């Protein structure tokens, strides 16, 4: 007799837990030919608010982890993802990818995570400066995370676009609330399971599924969100920029198609960093000089 397959319930990811949307609503994710592939949570603005609360609570401690420790945790994500490749490949194929393309996409994702894992304790060293001011002061500039970032994943990609936008944000010590691709949402939820088992502290990454048309507004107008990461084909860029002005969110816009070679780099990390410059006087008394 044929075994009855156990189907997965796709839920959302808030504060390290997998609740259903508080609204109790769902929508059907379909493939290109219209066949239903899963029921997804249709998250509400209340879910956005809950996710923001969780992300804010987690952010300070994530920032204060050592950069080396963040690098280890990010590397752990890659390790766990490597072991669960087949599940992601299957989901990508359900969402109309060929097997070969799916294999490449998952491999690229793992490599991208490793890439950013390595940046955690290096970007600040590369991008900081000691500034030779013309007065008797020691002066240096270094980066700190912007804080809480709202990420709206590109609609065209289930996994690679999401990973390309997520990793630079969290490698720099930000927390985030991420809205998955509405039409290709499966991998986002499964990635949450990977994050949950990779020592990523609860609340650092929160992932919601649902209709971007109703979620962009509560996210970009939330006064406790510091920045928004979005792709240029989104229909809501202008509205998001307007809503973001209320608390001067930094809005970063990227191409929808993330390039394997060019779509990574230190600039994607510093896009969600604030530069802090610190001054301190240098005592300058007595006659000794630097010469010997």
């Amino acid at each position, binding site marked *: 007799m044929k075994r009855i397959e156990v189907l997965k319930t796709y839920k959302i990811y808030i504060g390290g837990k997998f609740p259903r949307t508080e609204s109790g609503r769902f929508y059907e994710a379909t493939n290109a030919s219209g066949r239903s592939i899963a029921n997804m949570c249709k998250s509400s603005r209340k879910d956005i608010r809950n996710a923001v609360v969780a992300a804010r609570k987690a952010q300070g401690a994530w920032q204060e982890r050592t950069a080396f420790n963040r690098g280890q945790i990010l590397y752990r994500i890659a390790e766990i993802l490597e072991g669960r490749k087949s599940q992601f490949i299957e989901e990508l194929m359900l969402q109309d990818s060929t097997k070969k393309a799916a294999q490449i996409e998952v491999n690229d994702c793992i490599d991208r995570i490793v890439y950013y894992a390595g940046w955690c304790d290096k970007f600040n060293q590369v991008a900081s400066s000691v*500034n030779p001011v013309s*007065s008797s002061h020691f002066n240096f500039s270094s980066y700190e995370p912007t804080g809480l970032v709202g990420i709206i994943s590109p609609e065209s990609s289930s996994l690679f676009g999401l990973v390309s936008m997520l990793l630079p944000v969290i490698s720099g010590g930000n927390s985030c609330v991420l809205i998955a691709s509405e039409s290709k949402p499966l991998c986002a939820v499964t990635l949450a399971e990977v994050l949950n088992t990779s020592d990523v502290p609860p609340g650092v990454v929160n992932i919601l599924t649902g209709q971007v048309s109703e979620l962009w507004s509560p996210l970009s107008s939330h006064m406790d969100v510091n920045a928004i990461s979005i792709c240029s084909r989104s229909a809501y860029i*202008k509205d998001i920029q307007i809503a973001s002005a209320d*608390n*001067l969110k*930094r809005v970063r816009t990227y191409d929808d198609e993330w390039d394997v070679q060019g779509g990574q780099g230190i600039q994607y990390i510093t896009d969600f960093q604030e530069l*802090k*410059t610190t*001054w301190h*006087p240098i005592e300058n008394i007595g006659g000794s000089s630097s010469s010997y």
Partner: protein
Amino acid sequence: MTTKNNNWDYAASVESTAHIKLNKKYALYIDGKWVEPSSKKYFTTHNPHNEERIAEIADANDHDVDLAVKAADRAYKEVWSKISASERGKYIFRIARLMQEHARELAVIESLDSGKPIRESRDIDIPLACNHFFYYAGWADKLEYAFPNQKKEALGVAGQIIPWNFPLLMAAWKIAPALATGNTVVLKPAETTSLTALKLAEIIHASGLPPGVVNIVTGYGHTGAAIVSHPKVAKIAFTGSTAVGKLIQRSIAGTTKKATLELGGKSANIIFDDAPIDQAVEGIINGIFFNQGHVCCAGSRLFVQENVAEKVIRKLKHRMQSLQIGNPLDKNTDIGAINSAEQLSIINKYIKIGIKEGSEFFQSKCVLPKKGYYCAPTLFINVAQSSVLTQEEIFGPVLSIQTFRTVDEVIQKANNSPYGLAAGVWTDKGSKIFNLTSKLKAGVVWANTYNKFDPSSPFGGYKESGYGREGGLHGLAAYLK
């Protein structure tokens, strides 16, 4: 006339204005020429010390701004983007040198037009402005060292709108990095302080910079709005209020225009009980009374640890009593004139609110000049965290004082503000400094000092104090894509 008070009297020592050259009337500097405003309208710029007229300034409208932007666009495409980076740098070096030669004239005009003490314009504003050009000149042919492994390009026409508190210095902060990175410029100074930007236009003209690379258009908010909305402007650099900064972000939404916004602040200046108290008091004075408090990063919220609060406040009041308030051109003057009647009425409105709220109120006992716009240095003591005085930017010589007991408490209170421009920390303990400097949400943190600026030092805010940095290597990024 320097105000007399109980402690200190000085004979007046007023800087001469004999050597400055000012026209009665200034047109717009567009495409290397002085152009009449198409509306034929001019407005008057006044000396805030005695309310006398200094000059007539052209009021640029949309048509004038369009001419300026088109000139800048043409200059970008035909000239500025084609010359070599090292030649670009040499023009900027030339501008820096010419400014140095004109330094005293610029300082006097700055004090006449803005009301700031000559001591500050002579020793801080003008030298820093010159140095800013000199610093960025050298970057022009070294950009590939600033952003390794990233292909960076100029943006095109930069529209720049600057405030009245550091008129020439803000023009330098805007123009120098824009030119070094290969952009062309349309700059609008504030309507009450256009003169040094117009003198800078003369200097730039004398430097031989190709026509259209820098255009100076004067006017009010409507002139700035025309720059922001012009389709050929690729980048907006704005320094001013948070409210206008938000308007700008909204108005360029949906376009590809880049923006950097240097906005308001309500910066915390934190004094611990182990601080060198006398130096800290100087730092408090410099933090809030520098440039009459017309400083976006002014240390306008003072936090004093409870066990030294009485001593610090007593010494602060004593020190305030020796501040010389009066003629900005007097070399003894510490505190000059408030920039405009409008700003004075805003400050007085806040002082009234503070008195009504019932916080302890102190003003130094001094006789203010009868004419002109003056405000005595003001303290409000034991102000509530919820008070308007601790939440809103006043942009004047008004300090609100709160006390604290623990490090955690003061971090929370200091960060409890929508702003995040600057902060000050005073303590003798290095580890405490780094605890504070890493936890305060502010773009600039001064430890055991305050209100220091340098061309090589990036400046800019967190949160609602804006985004982007000006100064230093990081200031280049704002003008590149």
